[in-house]
């Protein structure tokens, strides 16, 4: 057992902290809303700054411009950025897409998309959900029809985060009707602005825009923008969802730790810290956040060692989201009558961060697999309980 970091990891953490000291976060304009996951707002300028350090591509093979650093460097970077509240919103998605392209992307994707990712320019939206395909993702209707050396995509995607400000969509489609439910799906990397693509914002309960819906009206894409072999997109997607749960939530623990520190400071200032019940709630949150962090590091060790993952990322994802909701709720209780004030309002406390977190956190147990779907995954895949019979 070993719960510390290696000297190289510690040195890298210090390097990241140094970068954050030199580059005050106010310098980076924000292009898209912070959805509360812990990765902050969407800021192209910040992605560029990370790219200039070589950090976006640092774990890639040298052949693709990387430095082949170990995976834990990504975790260190995430932790330091989240603890600082930096706007690195698109980073996890960029990393995941790049990894998929490196693993089974075409030459064209490797040549055109990877360098743009490394420069911090390419960011991605996920075109998975559809109006009638949410938790039952395989009920999707979007089709990609082969036509010579092109595919013609037709369908309607929804709940795609930052689709309007990203550069490419990862569009999950049906490419054939096969008897087996999980066969016949393919994924495409579709540049925004391709003719036939119509991206429309959906205003959320926060008043801001995070999600978009995307209409694909006979969108023509070259065949080599397909990610992976035709018809085997589902396996790729599953791997993607597994890693989505991990990479899309890893930074939640340090982000919650940052919020907890602010709440402690606030409680000290107002004198609420003398209330024994509140002390216990805050202390219990600190323990939960520490437990959350360790659940993710345990999953990280399994991923690093190539050990099988059955339920560990699903447990961690549910726990991250529910702990985040609990902390936001506690924050609202602590602020009392000031709790509903928005960022920018007179009299607002903690920059309005808590009311925003309270609202955004409501979506977290839904996005990327609902808490219910994931608990079923834990029970069936992790504990071997019998799956519920499914209608064909």
């Amino acid at each position, binding site marked *: *057992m*070993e*719960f*510390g*970091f290696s000297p190289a990891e510690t040195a890298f953490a210090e390097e990241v902290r140094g970068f954050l000291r030199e580059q005050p976060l106010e310098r980076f304009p924000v292009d898209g809303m912070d959805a509360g996951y812990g990765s902050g707002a969407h800021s192209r300028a910040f992605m560029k700054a990370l790219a200039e350090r070589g950090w976006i591509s640092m774990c890639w093979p040298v052949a693709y411009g990387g430095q082949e650093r170990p995976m*834990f460097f990504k975790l260190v970077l995430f932790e330091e950025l989240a603890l600082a509240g930096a706007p690195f919103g698109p980073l996890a998605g960029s990393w995941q897409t790049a990894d998929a392209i490196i693993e089974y992307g075409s030459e064209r994707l490797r040549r055109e998309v990877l360098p743009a990712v490394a420069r911090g320019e390419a960011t991605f939206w996920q075109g998975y959900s559809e109006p009638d395909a949410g938790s039952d993702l395989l009920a999707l209707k979007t089709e990609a029809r082969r036509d010579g050396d092109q595919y013609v995509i037709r369908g309607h995607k929804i709940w795609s985060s930052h689709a309007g400000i990203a550069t490419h969509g990862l569009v999950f489609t049906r490419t054939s009707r096969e008897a087996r439910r999980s066969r016949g799906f393919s994924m495409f990397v579709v540049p925004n602005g391709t003719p036939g693509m119509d991206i429309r914002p959906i205003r959320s309960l926060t008043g801001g825009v995070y999600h978009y819906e995307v209409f694909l009206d006979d969108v023509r894409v070259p065949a080599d923008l397909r990610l992976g072999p035709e018809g085997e997109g589902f396996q790729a997607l599953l791997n993607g969802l597994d890693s989505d749960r991990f990479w899309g939530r890893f930074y939640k623990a340090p982000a919650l730790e940052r919020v*907890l*520190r602010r709440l*402690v*400071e606030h*409680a*000290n200032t107002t004198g609420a*810290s003398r209330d024994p019940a509140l*002390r*216990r709630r*805050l*202390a*219990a949150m*600190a*323990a*939960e956040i*520490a*437990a*959350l962090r*360790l*659940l993710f*590091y*345990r999953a*990280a*060790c399994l991923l690093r060692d190539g050990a099988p993952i059955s*339920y*560990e990322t699903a*447990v961690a994802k*549910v*726990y991250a989201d529910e702990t985040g909701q609990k902390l936001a709720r506690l924050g609202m209780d602590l602020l009392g009558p000031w709790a509903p004030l928005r960022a920018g309002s007179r009299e607002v406390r903690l920059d309005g961060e808590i009311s925003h977190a309270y609202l955004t956190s409501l979506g977290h147990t839904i996005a990327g697999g609902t808490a*219910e779907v*994931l*608990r*079923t995954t*834990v*029970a*069936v895949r*992790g*504990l*071997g*309980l*019998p*799956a*519920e019979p499914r209608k064909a």
Partner: protein
Amino acid sequence: MDFRPSPAQQLLVATARDFLKKHCPPERVQRVALDARGVDDALWQRMAELGWQGLLVPAELGGSEGSLLDVILLVEEMGRAGAPGPFVPSAVVATSVLLACDNADQKKRLLPAMAAGERIVGVALADEASSLEVDARGRLTGRALFVEAAHVADALVVAARAGGETQLLLVPTDRRGIARWPLEVIGPEKLFEVAFDGAAVSAEDRLGSSAGRRGALQAGALARTAEMVGAAQRVLELAVEYAKTRVQGGRPIGGHQAIQHACADLVRDVDASRGLLYAAAWRTSEGVPAVADVAMAKAYASEACLTVARRAHQIFGAIGYCEEHPLHLLHKRIHAASLDCGDAALHLEEVAQAIGLR
């Protein structure tokens, strides 16, 4: 970072699991739990032969020279098996106090015998449950509550006020002026009120000022956390097995989402508790400051593992309500462990201070 126990620790865990399966099966745990004395001397002796009681003790004092992390892994297995006996008070807390004290004679006299399973030393260290005082003439007066296994203890480590400070004393239980009264509790552990009515205390009983108390209680808190995690792990295994095999309405109850989701929450609670436990035990073993880590681990497990046991009662339905079913003993053990060496409220206050609450 690495969550896997070392090969030697894996061997220790595997050996412990096999041993406890053979020498401490559920029927035996049940029998000892219902027995008025509540201690299994043969099991205690066999454990000593494996070096368990001496795991924290250096070789020159007859011990097997393990680390605190080894002890934690072992106690987790003991909690999983529901093994009876005063292992945590004697082999962890009292042993830690003796190791840290500067009374070389007592160390030499007691630690080898404790490691060999020949002597048991109980503890009365909790402030809130004792009112012990040594007067100017060296007489110990007052009473200590919730002292585990005082009936089989050869001696007790007690914290008593003497002048302006707290002193640690080692008092033989057969000394004049000491009375032990059993308390009736819901669980299998045997607790006592120990009354001191002017018991004589000499220089050789003194273990020094209370310096070693905090470290010993931390080791005890970790051991109690390990016990809870082990017991909760067992509850999880039993519940999942039951959910797979109990058929109602033509299919296993574990095929229903209501039960599946309950089981998923058991895994989360056990895994999260274990993560905090291992991290805190590792840091303590490495000599890294870990006061807040230990407090978080104990407070968290106290809540989470008890929740596991309570949720499992709902999964088991009526059968879990029976005395012959193992669930209630695991549940009661978790509850008792959550109180010893600092309850959740005490540890949460420790955490509150560590995170900067004024």
